[in-house]
């Protein structure tokens, strides 16, 4: 506190006398204070202390401090009053709808209300999945604000569509600014961005900085970037190598991809009776670990290590190597693998399909071509492979993925299997799928399991396009069968959530 004392000497004398005690020390004279009734003893000291205190309080003198530089603006227009109320409701108890609200705001070219930016920036600080949406909906005011709290610094590293490459900031800015500059340049001129990064690459001391700048290469990624990515594959930092490998995986015609194909060919081939044979992958094979961005193990090589080598190799190698190698189509490959009983290879292939986002292989894997959709999907959904279902479905167009699931559960499918299946289907769902699910709610074959019923309702509420709410029954389907109570409540809150979302969409057009 910068309270200048009007009577520093008197006050200090009074304080030290009070510390020692008036039994041992006389009350100091305080000629700068008005006279008090008592002239000695504790009463006089307290009277004078009170005078000095009130004088200090009343005589407060202000500091001289320059205001901060204001937000230079201009900014996107703010959302309307109703959308502000909606956001308040979401922040209070519908957090799960926040990502959708933020995306709608950004899509409408609007900005979140200024008064709630601190709360939104806090959410982004806690949940990194929200960050780019918060950055987009926060506008330039959000970015200006972020500099005042270290927890919000993440926002300064998020790309801004308005970013324009600037040589000086690129060379001398903070890590976040350099990342944004490179991102802006890659969007406008990928080749120039690559050249600039390659030029500074050997001088970037911190692995974290190299990783973040390499991230910017994702924008405008093309075959010409392969050489720089190969350099990054030799990096000391494991995260840098991992990122380089991820980016290389998206370039199936690179020299790197060809080397991976060679590795696969060296270890896999047709076996007897239409099977596939895989020989163990060893760490000392020329360049293998380096091509897979893996560290050389320090200890003994065991089963676990070999599994990891095979898993990574299969995941990262273009899937076409398998059809070439076995002379059959994707479905044929998968069948041969299944026939070989090699679960490890099978799972690695499914993982590769998700990672490489290959729709043809995804259809094959989902068993579409064999007409045994239900069994396979339910088995996959129920078993330890359930995680693999979602990445496979994700690569299919919305209509196709919903149609596939529609055919995948029948009257005999239990509540939990329905939930597992539906949970693997990213939204938005088609009207047909929504109706099918809602018709079946609580119907025949459903466990009398309130938790399962409620979970399915939550999924429907989240993934149904909100305008479909008008087509859904107002009364809880099969109410008599589910016995009212919690299930009735779950369905009615499903409708409420859809109405809430519908209003939210209307407010943010």
């Amino acid at each position, binding site marked *: *506190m*910068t*309270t200048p004392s009007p009577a520093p000497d008197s*006050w200090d004398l*009074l*304080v030290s006398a*009070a*510390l*020692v*005690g*008036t*039994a*041992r020390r006389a009350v100091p004279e305080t000629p700068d204070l008005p006279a008090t009734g008592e002239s000695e*003893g*504790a*009463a006089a*000291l*307290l*009277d*004078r*202390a*009170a*005078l*000095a*205190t*009130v004088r*200090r*309080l*009343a*005589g*407060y003198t*202000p*500091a*001289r*401090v*320059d*205001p*901060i*530089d*204001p*937000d230079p*603006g201009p900014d996107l227009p703010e959302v309307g009053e109703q959308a502000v109320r909606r956001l308040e409701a979401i922040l209070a108890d519908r957090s799960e709808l926040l990502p959708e609200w933020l995306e709608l705001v950004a899509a409408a070219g609007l900005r979140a209300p*200024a*008064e*709630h*930016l*601190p709360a939104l920036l806090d959410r982004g600080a806690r949940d990194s999945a929200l960050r780019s949406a918060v950055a987009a909906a926060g506008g330039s*005011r959000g970015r*200006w*604000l972020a500099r*005042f*709290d270290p927890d919000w610094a993440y926002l300064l590293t998020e790309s801004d569509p308005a970013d324009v490459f600037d040589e000086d900031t690129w060379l001398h800015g903070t890590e976040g600014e350099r990342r944004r500059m490179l991102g802006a340049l890659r969007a406008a001129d990928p080749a120039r961005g690559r050249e600039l990064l390659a030029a500074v690459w050997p001088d970037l001391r911190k692995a974290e900085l190299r990783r973040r700048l390499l991230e910017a290469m994702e924008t405008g990624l093309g075959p010409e970037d392969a050489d720089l990515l190969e350099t990054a594959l030799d990096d000391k930092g494991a995260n840098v190598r991992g990122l380089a490998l991820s980016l290389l995986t998206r370039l199936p015609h690179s020299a790197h991809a060809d080397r991976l194909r060679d590795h696969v060919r060296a270890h896999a081939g047709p076996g007897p009776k239409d099977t596939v044979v895989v020989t163990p992958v060893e760490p000392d094979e020329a360049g293998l670990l380096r091509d897979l961005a893996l560290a050389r193990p320090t200890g003994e090589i065991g089963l676990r290590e070999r599994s990891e080598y095979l898993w990574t190799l299969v995941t990262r190698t273009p899937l076409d190597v398998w059809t070439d190698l076995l002379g059959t189509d994707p479905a044929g490959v998968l069948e041969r693998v299944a026939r070989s009983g090699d679960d490890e290879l099978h799972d690695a292939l499914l993982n590769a399909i998700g990672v490489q986002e290959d729709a043809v292989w995804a259809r094959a894997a989902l068993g579409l071509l064999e007409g045994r959709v239900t069994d396979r999907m339910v088995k996959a959904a129920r078993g330890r492979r359930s995680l693999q279902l979602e990445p496979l479905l994700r690569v299919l167009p919305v209509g196709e993925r919903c149609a596939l699931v529609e055919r995948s559960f029948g009257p005999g499918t239990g509540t939990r299997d329905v939930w597992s299946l539906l949970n693997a289907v990213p939204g938005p769902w088609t009207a047909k799928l929504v109706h099918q699910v809602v018709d079946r709610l609580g119907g025949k074959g459903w466990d009398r399991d309130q938790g399962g019923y409620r979970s399915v309702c939550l999924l429907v509420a989240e993934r149904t396009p909100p305008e479909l709410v008008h087509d859904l029954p107002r009364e809880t389907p099969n109410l008599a069968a589910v016995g009212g109570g919690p299930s009735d409540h779950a369905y009615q809150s499903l409708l409420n959530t859809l109405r809430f979302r519908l209003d939210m969409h209307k407010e943010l057009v």
Partner: protein
Amino acid sequence: MGKAASWPQRGAVAASAGGTSAVWGECQGSGSKPYLAAVHLDGGTGPAYKCSCPSRKIPCKHVLGLLALWAQGEVADREDKPSWVGSWLDGRAARQARAADPAKAAPADPAKAAATLRAREEAVAAGLAELRLWLHDQIDAGLAEVPKHGYDHWDRMAKRLTDAKARGASGWVSRLPSVARQESWPERVLEHLGLLHLLIDGYGAGDALGERTRGAIRSRVGITLKADEVRAGGESVGDTWVVLGRRTVPGAEDDMTGLRVWLRGARTGRTALALSFGRADQAPTTPYRLGTAVEADLSFYPDGHRVVPDPGTELPGPVPQGTTVAGALDAHAAVLAEDPWRETWPVVLADAAPARDDRWYLADPGGDALPLATGVPRRLLAVTGGRPATVAAEWSPAEGLTPLAVWDRTGKAIPL
């Protein structure tokens, strides 16, 4: 929060039937004042919580941290306890007894009430006379040992004042242990004792003082008026009262939450303070909403500032008239002249902009700046983008400014 180091003072109160009756502690946070947290475990209707932090969550994180510490065996039974713990537990016990025996809640009787008041004034005078001697003893002996005193040292005096019906003065005494733990405690303690001494002298001066000063003294000592008495006999002022802002604070009584709402008369320029209280689990309510004004005749307490809340007729609120920093300090000094014990006062600064060196300030266009009591003024920055705006805040020379509300470019009031 859940670490012993955050709780330099803590203890458990043993129950007479064995086990633990209550757990209390003082949590040293980033601010100068520790948060006082306590849990009453054997209160009959499940545990009750109390904390002086501004959080609306009940129990708050301090209470939870304290309980976690206790559960780990890090809070030992202690014979002595600070008076804020004692009076809270006593108050709860008394309320429980009253609830069990409604006949004791006596009905009002005017003649009897007047006699009660006289008896009360005499009891308070006797209590304050004793306090005066006690203060002199402290100063005679010297303050050097103050931080080493246990709670008992302060508690005895605080208890005697409570018995003498001077609850306000008792509160001043029970705050001493935490004052003694602040930075530059010798100065803070001497200020506190000096003002308390002045309060005693003021009470003794009686009619020699102005009406408002007398009113301020009586309420601070603990002689309070009921709302009905104020409505019947207090000054009534009709105006359009603009809501400046609100702030939740620990209540005068221990397990209560207080809500201060500041109003300013558009025509008279009078400042009015509407106080309301809620028990621990129930937020206090107020008829006043930020962004509005009310047309009403408000009844003032004798101190000239506090009013009996009256809903009046709600109107859209204009942006209140603001002043410079110097103007605000002048108004505060004038208030201190009537009521030197007043710890906080509302100021409205016009064209105030956030400023910063090693801490945050609000600066007026002339460059005068007052420090903020809070950390980064996040919402103020978000709403204004750092540009000048009208800001209402509570001012305390010791703590700094606590922003209450800002009016944005469109004239909309936003709570801070």
